[in-house]
Every structure is written in C-alpha cells, then in structure tokens.
C-alpha cells in the first residue's frame, strides 16, 4: 500500500528566474561538447565520399606529414614556410575538408602564442637590432625594487622577424597535425604507429579512447539523474561534496568495468600478447603523394637557402 503523501500534488510555482549555469553544469556541458566534437571529427575523417588524404594509407600519411613537419623546422624564412602551408591547405581542399573544420580548432592559439611566447623575442632585450617601435626610453636608470629597468625598450626589426618565424612555424606545424587528425581516424592513426615494440601502448590507447565515451556517458547520466531530482540548488560546499562522491563512484565503476573488459578479452583467447590486423598498402596514389611531399619540401628548403637567404631581410 502506498503512503498517502504519494497522492499529494506538488504546489504550483511562479515562472522560474534565470540562473547562471553552475560549475558542474558548465563542466558537463563542455564534456558533452568534447564528445560531440570527437564524433564530428570521426565523421569528417571517414566521410561517405572520401577525398585524396582520406584514402591514403595511414602509415604513409603519418610518416609523410612528420617529414613535412621536420622540414618546416629547417626553414628560416616565413615565405618558405608558407609554401608548405599552401601545399597542405591545397591537399585538404582537394580532399573536401571544410575550411571551418580545419581552422576552427586552432585559430585562437596562433595569436595567443604570438603574444605570450613570440612577442618577447621581438624586444631589443632578446633580439638586439634596428628599432621599429619604441615602447619607452628613460633618461636615467630606474629601479623597481631589485629590478633594474633597461634604459630603452623597443621592438626591433630582427626581433619581429624572429617572432613571425616562430609563430608561422607553429601555425604550419599545427596545420599539418590537424590535417592529419581530420583525415585519419584515431584507430587508424594508432594502427599506423603499431609495431611489435609499440603494440602494448597502442592497445592501451585504443581501449582508453573507446572507454572514454562509456565513462562520459556515465558522467552525463549521473548529472541528468541529479538534475531530474533537484528541487532546490545546493550550496557550493554541497555541490563540491556531490562531485567528490561522484568521482569516487566513477572510479569504482571504471575499476569494475576494467575487470569485465579483461574477462571479455580472456574469454576471446587473449593471452597477454596484443595482436592487430594492420594493412600496409603502397599503391600509385601513395607513391605520388610521397613524391609530391618530397618535391615540395625540397623546393621550400632550396628556396629558403638559395633565394630568400640573399634578401636583405
């Protein structure tokens, strides 16, 4: 027999006031967004109509892009770096990768790195040279506690060129890496790195990626279950306690899941030696791609050494 209070209706309330999302909600929202982005990236990496970069063998693609990144580190002029950037951007365009997907992930990081890491290199303190912009000039030495300010702080032409080079190199490197991940699924990328020595790490990373989604869904379910039963918002300390308990519960669940996964592996004959089905195919497209990469990298290196080095800047 159900108690009588089960039949009592909840009192009607006025319209809810707008509240800003709490820390937990924001975190979970970001977690859900991460999962969405990852699923989107997987879809882009294996589209219904694959382009040039999608169809290339993952191992060839990984090695060729690593080669291009190494070539970029040997370039000392911004225009030669742009040659490499233009090549990979053209390959991405031919492969029908949306420009938004390509640049969306890192467009904000380039100015940030420029300001935080590269800009100090433009100052006369780090790179002396011809002054372009004077930030301040003091007639006499000024001390701020133990710190002695330099009499003059300027941005130099040589320093600015050095900052531009560092930033462009970073941009090109990230562009290569993003192109690789947008055209290669995570599991293919891991298989590309598979060899006898790396096999245990590849297995662990593959499974970690797989179960990240299971745990993300658990976190989301926990939060939704709490929201569905929350009548009054909790105090910050109560929220922190809730998070602490859920972290503990999640840890316990993940430990049990680990045991079940290991049992499932044993049941299917796993005897401690990871094995994977890898296919390494070098066909005409792969050969043409490798040749194109080598030609572009050689062209950029030659231009950097022979032509650009002779320019006055």
């Amino acid at each position, binding site marked *: 027999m159900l108690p009588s209070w089960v039949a009592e209706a909840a009192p009607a309330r006025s319209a809810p006031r707008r509240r800003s999302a709490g820390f937990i909600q924001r975190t979970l929202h970001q977690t859900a967004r991460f999962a969405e982005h990852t699923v989107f990236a997987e879809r882009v990496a294996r589209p219904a109509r694959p382009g040039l970069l999608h169809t290339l063998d993952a191992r060839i693609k990984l090695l060729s892009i690593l080669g291009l990144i190494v070539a970029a580190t040997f370039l000392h002029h911004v225009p030669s770096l742009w040659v490499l950037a233009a090549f990979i951007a053209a390959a991405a365009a031919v492969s029908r990768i949306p420009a938004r997907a390509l640049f969306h992930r890192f467009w904000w990081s380039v100015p940030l790195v420029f300001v935080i890491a590269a800009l100090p290199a433009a100052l006369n303190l780090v790179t002396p040279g011809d002054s372009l912009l004077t930030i301040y000039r003091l007639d006499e030495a000024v001390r701020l506690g133990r710190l002695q300010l330099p009499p003059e702080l300027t941005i130099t032409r040589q320093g600015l060129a050095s900052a531009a080079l560092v930033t462009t190199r970073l941009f090109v490197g990230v562009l290569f890496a993003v192109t690789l991940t947008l055209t290669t699924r995570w*599991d293919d990328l891991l298989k590309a790195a598979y060899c006898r020595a790396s096999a245990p790490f590849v297995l662990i990373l*593959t499974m970690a990626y797989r179960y990240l989604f299971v745990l993300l869904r658990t976190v989301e379910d926990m939060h939704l279950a709490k929201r569905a039963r929350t009548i009054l918002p909790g105090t910050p300390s109560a929220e922190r306690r809730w998070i602490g308990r859920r972290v503990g519960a999640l840890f316990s669940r993940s430990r049990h899941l680990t045991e079940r996964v290991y049992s499932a*592996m044993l049941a299917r004959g796993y005897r401690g030696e990871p094995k994977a089905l890898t296919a390494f195919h070098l066909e005409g497209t792969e050969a043409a791609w490798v040749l194109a990469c080598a030609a572009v990298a050689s062209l950029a290196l030659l231009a950097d050494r022979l032509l650009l080095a002779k320019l006055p800047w």
Partner: protein
Amino acid sequence: MVAPLLQAEAVTYHYPDGRAGIVEASVSVAEGESLVILGANASGKTTLLQLLAGLIFPARGTVRAFDIVLSEQSLQDGDFARTFRQRVGFLFQDTDAMLFSATVYDDIAFGPLQLDLTPDEVRRRVEETLSLLGLSAIAQQPPHQLSGGEKKKVALAALLAVSPGALLLDEPTSGLDPRSQRWFVELAGELRAMGKTLVTATHDLHVADEIADRVIVLGEDHRIAAEGPPERLLRDLDLLLSVNLVHQHAHIHDGRVHVHPHSHLHAHDHQ
C-alpha cells in the same frame, strides 16, 4: 560413456564482499545440447556461466571442460588455454565490456587474431561473419555509435568469428526489441542445427521455451531448484512462483477477485 563437454560438480562461489554467487551447484552440459539456465535477478546465472567459462574459479567443487579440471593452473598452459577458448565462447551481458576495440571490424577480428590465423584468413572470417549477421554497413563504426541491439549483434558476431563449439550466452535477449529477440531465437535454432552446444542464462521464459532441450532453474538462495525438460519445468507454476520467475496476479471477473500466477506462457481458465 562420452564425458560431458562441460561439467560443474558441487561448485560454490562467493564474491569478494562475502555475498554468495552460487551454492553447491552441479551442472553437466553434453555436446550439441541446448541448456537454458533460468533464474530471477541475482540468482547466480552469470556466476555459473562464468565458472563454466573459466573466467572465475570456485571456492569449493570442480569445473571440468573436456574432462580436464578447469583451474588457473590449467589455463596457464598455453595450448590448453587456446584450445579451450577456441572451443568455448562467452557472450557477456554487458556489451560495452565485450566490445573493447576501436571499430566493429576490429572487435570481430580480435578473437580470430588470437588463434594465430593468417591475416587473410582473419579478414575472410570477419567479412563472412559481418555478412552473415548483416553488419557490413557498420563495420567501420566505433562501438559507442551503435544502438543496444546493434551492440548485441556485434558481440554475437565477435563470438561466432572464433567458431566455438560451445556458446555460453549471458542474457542474450536483454535490451533487445521484439524483432531482434525473434532474430536471436532463429539464430539459436540455426546454431543448434549445426550441432553447436548452447548454454543460455536468461529469465525470459519465452526464449527458454523456444530454444531449450533442458532447463536448470536457479532459486533465489543461489542453489539449483530444479532440472529437467522445458515441457515440464516451464509449466510448473508453483516452481516458477517459488523462484520468482512468475508473479501472483489479481484481477476482477464478474465481481469476484481472481488470483493466479501470471506468466505469458500459460493460458488459464476463468470459469
């Protein structure tokens, strides 16, 4: 006399926290038969299956496979372990635990790879299994993008790709819609016709009725309550009521309260 394929003799298992998993259970599985282990939630069905699969080991009693005692020591022997895992497959109820690879294709390939087959042979098996279960369209999908029914089918495909002679199936129809349940019953029929041994743990009386040659009923005290042919046990309402597989159902007919055990397998007369 031919030794049973799998045999548990008076096995008892307790979980690390002291709860009983199964108590004094003796089970024998003959080659080619379809045995159904029926029981309510937490009665010990999964524990008994895991003992038969050599995934956990009893505190008391012995489990034998092909007349060899199944223990941690015997499964350390690489040759025996490989033969045993090749001949006895296990379908987990929790498909998320069973599908641990990055894609459906890799998951199905995992078992055959452990058998040291050549890559071409592994690919051939995977592709044939995908085609057999109608999974080719989702072969390159990661498991987290699959529905519950698809995950169950992929888990079964992963099991079939190893081609075990005996399949231990833990709640194979849980979470499946009626059409997928029917699909499973038909698949079980085909496997039986091929001479495969099936040991299915379930609380679904319909599934038991359709696929069982023999039924073992577990009680809520984690002991075997009854064993026999499905025609007899599945119609023994007092037994099913006592082990919580059917419930008392009350309703009103012609102004009088009418109480009877309720199960969709049984017709009853209101006169």
